[in-house]
């Protein structure tokens, strides 16, 4: 089974701190995604990556950056956390173009910025 893990289930940070959210998948998937989920807004795509060292902006990239140095790991970085970044963050992965179209999700990280 595909497994997507996220470094923390719950995280509390202070305004202005640099925050790293880590995501690791074990199925050699090319594509990886970061979403945030807020009540009434559903899932919104922050950034995604098609391959190592590649990144593409999603719908709401402002205030975030990403890093993909290795195929299995996709990191989301909040350079200077703000209270409006309090949210549930979900990582997902998907095989390349010849594979399945479904995305496999991690359990999520609930981030609170005080």
């Amino acid at each position, binding site marked *: 089974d595909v497994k*997507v893990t996220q470094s923390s289930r719950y995280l509390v940070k202070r305004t202005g701190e640099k925050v790293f959210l880590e995501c690791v998948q074990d199925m050699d998937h090319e*594509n990886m*995604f970061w*979403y945030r989920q807020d009540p*009434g*807004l*559903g*899932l*919104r*795509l922050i950034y*995604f990556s*098609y391959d190592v060292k590649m990144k593409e902006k*999603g*719908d709401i990239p402002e205030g975030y950056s990403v890093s993909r140095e290795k195929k299995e790991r996709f990191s989301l970085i909040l350079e200077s956390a703000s209270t409006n970044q309090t949210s*549930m963050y*979900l990582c*997902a992965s998907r095989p390349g*173009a010849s594979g399945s*179209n*479904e*995305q*496999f*999700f*991690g*359990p*999520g990280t*609930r981030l609170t910025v005080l």
Partner: protein
Amino acid sequence: SQQGEEDPQALSIQEGENATMNCSYKTSINNLQWYRQNSGRGLVHLILIRSNEREKHSGRLRVTLDTSKKSSSLLITASRAADTASYFCATDADNRLAFGKGNQVVVIP
């Protein structure tokens, strides 16, 4: 940008009844997918229907797709308490998914 929009937003039913959720979207798609999310957890893929398909079944799930109306429906038959969750539709275009806002379903034992 957000594509899928589910309707109704919240549904409460008795165990054994059927639950139906609808999703509408705005642009062309390659396929449409439905996901389930249990409270505070990640999403789990349920079923995918391609743009050239009209209906698909998987166990107690039945999905329809009407590309002329840009809409899809998810039917869960003979619901169980364990089906209590949020359900999301997601449209797949340009190798990325656009999710709807979700549909909360509560199955009362």
